[in-house]
């Protein structure tokens, strides 16, 4: 099996899809010569030309809106919002337009649009370039929400997102781009709405997304040294949610920790906690612990940033808290 970085895996999905399908094109700021701010699309304009790899003005309303319009007219646009912090500017088009056209039209319209974006802390960008905002979109009927954590997943899920007939908000994590992982020779589409069990365990389930999947696997390793068996599950698709897999896991382990980089209050972990406490009520031996960022705009100074965002140690501490209960 070949090994790809997460960055290469994204590019591979985009390129392979574009090679075989003229409906696909990309729009975003600096995605052409520069290859995007994260180098994800490097080389693509050379292969596909500037009609299909389109640099745009700084117009996050129009980038998403034009994607919607083209999608309605039969294209499969993949648009890039350089940092997910700037999704704030596109909210109206995403929430009132992309998500609602199908229902408002009584089923006349499909919006097969993919909105790729990335974000996350760990490099001191300050408060406006490091948010994790995925939970907002989980609250929006009509959108699908994907957050991939490995090269294999990001490739297979992006492929499925491009070909999903619905608008998909596709989150990548900045610090994951360089990580490497094995991928199948051929792209294997990963169906949206299916969680992945990264590690099987019996004492506690950690449900984690994005960067926190890796932190949780690290925490699980450490926990194992204390004789604690941790199951790590990544929902991968946040909406629709594979609650079945998650609930089954917690019914088995009887304890649950949720972990994401976004702030805890109002985060995706809240939805997870609500779903799990409902579906596994009779099985739970401890309250569900939520791990996430502190409730503060992210400070610049590395010591403060580091304190704000969660790491393996925070996940481990939460694991221990759940196990401290009788």
């Amino acid at each position, binding site marked *: 099996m070949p090994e790809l970085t997460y960055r290469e895996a994204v590019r591979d999905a985009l390129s392979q899809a574009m090679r075989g399908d003229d409906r696909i094109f990309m729009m975003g700021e600096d995605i052409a010569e520069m290859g995007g701010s994260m180098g994800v699309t490097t080389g693509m304009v050379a292969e596909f030309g500037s009609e299909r790899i389109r640099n745009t003005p700084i117009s996050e*309303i129009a980038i998403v809106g034009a994607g919607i*319009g083209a999608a309605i007219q039969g294209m499969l646009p993949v648009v890039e919002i350089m940092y997910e912090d700037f999704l704030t500017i596109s909210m109206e088009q995403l929430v009132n337009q992309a998500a609602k056209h199908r229902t408002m039209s009584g089923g006349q319209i499909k919006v097969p649009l993919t909105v790729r974006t990335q974000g996350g802390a760990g490099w001191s960008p300050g408060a406006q370039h490091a948010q994790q905002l995925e939970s907002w979109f989980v609250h929006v009927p009509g959108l699908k929400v994907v957050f991939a954590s490995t090269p294999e997943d990001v490739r297979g899920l992006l492929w499925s997102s491009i070909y999903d007939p619905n608008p998909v908000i596709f989150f990548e994590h900045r610090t994951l781009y360089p990580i490497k992982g094995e991928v199948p020779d051929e792209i294997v589409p990963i169906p949206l709405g299916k969680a992945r069990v990264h590690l099987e365990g019996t004492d506690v389930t950690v449900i984690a997304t994005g960067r926190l999947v890796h932190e949780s696997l690290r925490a699980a390793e450490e926990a194992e040294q204390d004789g604690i068996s941790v199951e790590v599950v990544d929902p991968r698709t946040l909406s629709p949610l594979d609650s079945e897999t998650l609930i089954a896991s917690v019914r088995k382990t009887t304890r649950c920790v949720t972990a994401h980089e976004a702030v805890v209050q109002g985060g995706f972990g809240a939805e997870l906690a609500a779903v799990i406490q409902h579906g596994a009520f009779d099985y739970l031996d401890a309250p569900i612990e939520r791990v996430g960022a502190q409730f503060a705009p992210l400070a610049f100074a590395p010591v403060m940033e580091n304190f704000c965002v969660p790491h393996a140690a925070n996940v481990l501490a939460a694991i221990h808290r759940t196990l401290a209960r009788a």
Partner: protein
Amino acid sequence: MAPVAQVPATDSGEKSRASAGTLSDKRLRELFREMLLIRRFEEKVEERFRAGDLPGFLHVAIGQEAVASGVCEALEPDDVIASTHRAHAHTIAKGTPVNAIMAEMYGKNEGCSQGYGGSMHLYDVARGNMGANAVVGGGLPQIAGAALAFKLRKEPRVAVAFFGDGATNTGAFHESMNLAQLWKLPVLFVLENNGWAESTPATQQLPLAVEEMGQRAAAYGMTAMEVDGQDLEAVVEATRSARDHAVSGLGPVFMNVRTYRFTGHYVGDPQVYRDKSEVRQLRETQDPLELLRARLGMTGEEFERIDADVMAEVDGSVAFAQAGTDPDPQDALKWVYAEGSMEHGSKEPLSTEPRA
């Protein structure tokens, strides 16, 4: 046919005037009938709303009929439009039968949006209506995107955004105009400039006078046209020119179409913010139906005949709607997501055969 104003848009553009004869007398009478159908339909909507028949939030375009009919007359069937909260006229002019629209108002399965949309969300995708939008400015970037799809596929189609003067103050307007001009997309930006945004007169929301609104195109170097929106023929001719311009790859056109809203902003609006006499005077001097009727030298008799015919159609639409079926409550969940996959490997090349 008046050529598209190629003057820099910073100029006030060229006043398009119909040259006699480009629309046959017969066609003009058909368009008169359509405009009257719009008028009577909207009056009926007002009546039914006041009677408590219609739920929701309604806006009529009485006084603005020539804009909808004139623009759509100049379009090809494959061209697409996006409409606004004031959507009935555009939808009728783009060809949707009034039965389907009235049924939509009543929230019936037979409605043009199957009862999911209502007055502010009329859709008819098969007829090129990409939907009315209740968010001011919301449809504009999507029209740019539709035009981009046409351009990428080399289809000779245009995408048309209707919007009001108030909408020109939104960020969505700006970004859409900019992108469309930058990429020379085949878009017509049709400003229905009635000088009001709800209760707010132009002077309180626009730093330009209504007649200067062509300047909004200057910021993009976009071609602008001045159009008399009460004059059906002028609107048709201007739109034809604009369409020719856009479809031939020269880029979008901004049409500053001056018009008047004879009624309140919404059905039920007490209009505390303007003088009753203003409206009365407008109705007397600026009614697009009266102006066209005069132009056609239509007799009272002919008018009565058309009106009776139109009224029958409108009454029929009410009967059709009332006889319609209510959705099942659970149908609310029916269209949230599309099923299946778009399937890799489109046979359709980027430049398809022209569809027109």
